């Protein structure tokens, strides 16, 4: 008798949870997705009608004030292939972990045969990894995982994601800048970002009268923070790109990594060849890892000249019309080779 009582009670609770799941999915899930993971909407819009998906961030859609052609990189690319439809999934400040979660969401029935994934060298830096933006990205990532929606919502409430507060992230960032050693093949006075940044931040660039050149100091130290590192095996972003490669292989989706162009001219002007040496070495590391029979890494790193970068006071991957066209063209050339393969 007592057992029946407990079974009945258990079944009522179970039924209540099923009802909650139905109610939540029906009336509230969309709104939560819109608020915390709106990029998924982008995917849903294209996943059933395109041959390839371009996953991008602000580098894709930011345009210059005087641009005549306001098309994004992916739109320019799409126009090159009239018989091969390329859809775009984009949002500012995204990174590989989100792209991976989105790729997993592409339904098996989708016609998508190829994905082009933006690879931003800055996204491997401690500065980006410990950025405050990460909390919101991880919130989105949590909602993108495959589990009952009601459970995802509860986990969001319980902050079951990388939800460190700003002060904690800053502490981790400073620790990473000190801990992550840079190995130089030649004599160089600094072997970590922290020391390098402090040295250059305290009068590293001077005006003719001997006073500090603040615009150069601000830009130069930012460049050190964004690019002054070696990508090591334990870099979380590397794991994300590995996961993307694995998922695409399992699902038989052709994968292209699109390594974005950086403002090498501006960097060389402030740092000589030292900082760009690290960037090129990191590029070579990524190429060695992700360029093989199965994978393609399109290298745009040195493709765009300084004049075609929109932002002059902070390192970004925002290009004017010509910059975007060059990247689209480079990408299109690689794509053609793949598509022409029997």
């Amino acid at each position, binding site marked *: 008798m007592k057992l029946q009582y407990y079974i009945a009670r258990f079944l009522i609770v179970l039924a209540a949870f099923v009802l*909650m799941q139905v109610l*939540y999915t029906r009336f*509230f899930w969309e709104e939560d997705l819109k608020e*915390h993971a709106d990029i998924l909407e982008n995917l849903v819009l294209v996943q059933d009608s395109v041959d390839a998906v371009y996953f991008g961030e602000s580098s894709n859609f930011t345009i210059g004030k005087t641009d005549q052609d306001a098309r994004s990189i992916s739109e320019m690319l799409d126009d090159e292939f009239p018989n091969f439809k390329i859809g775009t999934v984009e949002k500012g400040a995204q990174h590989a972990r989100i792209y991976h979660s989105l790729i997993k969401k592409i339904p098996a029935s989708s016609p998508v045969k190829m994905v082009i994934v933006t690879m931003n060298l800055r996204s491997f830096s401690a500065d980006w990894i410990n950025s405050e933006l990460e909390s919101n990205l991880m919130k989105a990532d949590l909602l993108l995982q495959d589990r009952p929606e*009601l459970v995802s*919502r*509860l986990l*969001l409430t*319980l*902050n079951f994601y990388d939800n460190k507060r700003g002060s904690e992230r800053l502490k981790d960032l400073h620790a990473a800048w000190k801990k992550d050693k840079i190995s130089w093949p030649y004599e160089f006075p600094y072997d970590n970002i922290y020391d390098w940044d402090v040295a250059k931040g305290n009068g590293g660039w001077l005006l003719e009268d001997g006073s500090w050149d603040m615009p150069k100091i601000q830009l130069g130290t930012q460049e050190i923070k964004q690019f002054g590192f070696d990508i090591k095996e334990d870099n979380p972003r590397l794991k994300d790109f590995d996961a993307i490669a694995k998922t695409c292989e399992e699902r038989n989706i052709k994968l292209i990594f699109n390594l974005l162009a950086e403002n090498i001219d501006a960097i060389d002007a402030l740092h000589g060849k030292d900082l760009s040496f690290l960037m090129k070495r990191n590029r070579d590391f990524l190429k060695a890892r992700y360029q093989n029979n199965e994978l393609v890494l399109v290298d745009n790193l040195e493709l765009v000249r300084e004049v075609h970068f929109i932002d002059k006071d902070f390192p970004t991957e925002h290009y004017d019309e010509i910059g975007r066209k060059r990247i689209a063209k480079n990408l299109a050339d690689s794509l053609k080779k793949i598509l022409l393969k029997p």
Partner: protein
Amino acid sequence: MLFNSVHFLVFLPLVLVLYYLTKAKYRWVFLLLASYYFYASWRIEYLGLIIFSTLIDYWCALKMSKHGARKQRRPFLVLSLLSNLGLLAFFKYYSFANESLMQLFSYADIGYKYYRFEDLLLPVGISFYTFQTLSYSIEVYRGEQKAERHLGIFALYVSFFPQLVAGPIERFARLGTQLKQQVSFSWSNIRKGLQLMLYGFFAKVCIADNFANIVTPFFENPLDYSAFSAWAAALAYAFQIYCDFFAYSTIAIGLARMLGISIMDNFKSPYFALSITEFWRRWHISLSTWFRDYLYIPLGGNKGSKMLWIRNILIVFLVSGLWHGANWTFVVWGGIHGLIYLLEKLYTPKIQGPIKFFMWLKTFSMVVLAWVFFRAQNFDNASEAFQALFGAGGTNQVELKTVSVLLFGLFALSDYFLFNQRFDTWIDNRKAPLRWSVYLVLLACIFMFGGVENHPFIYFQF
């Protein structure tokens, strides 16, 4: 470790199962280890502070118990006071005191420098456990409490995880004694504990955390907002802080209950109080009684002249304000409450019939407005918030979600009906269909509408 985290939801059942599987005689060992683990999960290095505080007070109390005369006991009480208040002063008030001095000297154009400790974080719960252990030392000094000889039990009293971080601040006579008793497993304790935790979680994630999303943007730029939004934000903060702290206390009481231990109530529907005096009998009861017993009465209480009594009241409220945070805004908040308290005591007529509503309205409005100082970053921020409240702000509107308003309505109703009783007592007296309906509604609200930002319990920072 936050109560509203997956980490805690794994920790709790493990602790409960292992606690009841452990021989009753040795349960204190397990609970002490669990409590230390709970605290160390924030920052392991700060565990040393609790252990230091525990050892000092344990030793001082033993020494005091060996002497009959108060005069001989006094040096040990002073040592205990200096150690605990010294910790508090260093970690909580060092920067504040030096910044205030620097400001003061700057008025006279005198340079003042002090050493800044980088990365000095306020140890979570330090204000609570230092006050708890101080109450023990003072009572042993007064001869009202025997010194505890069992170091483990005393250490557990100081670090008992359910109420370690944000109270209620318990006395040894109540908590310590229970920790020594051998508890047997009872479904009734588990049920009541779960009921309280459910209600506490609802208040925290559905009300406090959702209202935080109204309050935070407003206080970042108060002058951007319309008067309506400013009042909405001020009210939202009043309920954010209440629900946040009430939730912590309720969850703490529920957790302790599941371990077979009863801890005191900390709140009794304070926003339905008809006077500030009544408000303080219903709000953070364990702190109010602490200040009454260990500050107000030693200062002389209401014995003596009216001026002395006024002085004592003001000291208690100002110190209470400062206890909450190292900022002059907290002192002003305490001062406002102290002044209203005095005015009420000196001039309020007896409460009768229809006056009651106006008494409630006056009390509630005063409390809400005083919270502005409590929440503001500084006086400029408070001034901007007041300007917005009285129409000098912009036209921006805070984002009031229908769901948040409905959830708030549900909580306000339940708070009104509970008034002088706890949720577990109320729900236990309902028939099964209603009882289960309430459980499911609360669960549904937590699952579907809990806040999603990372808002640790507000009182952790105190």
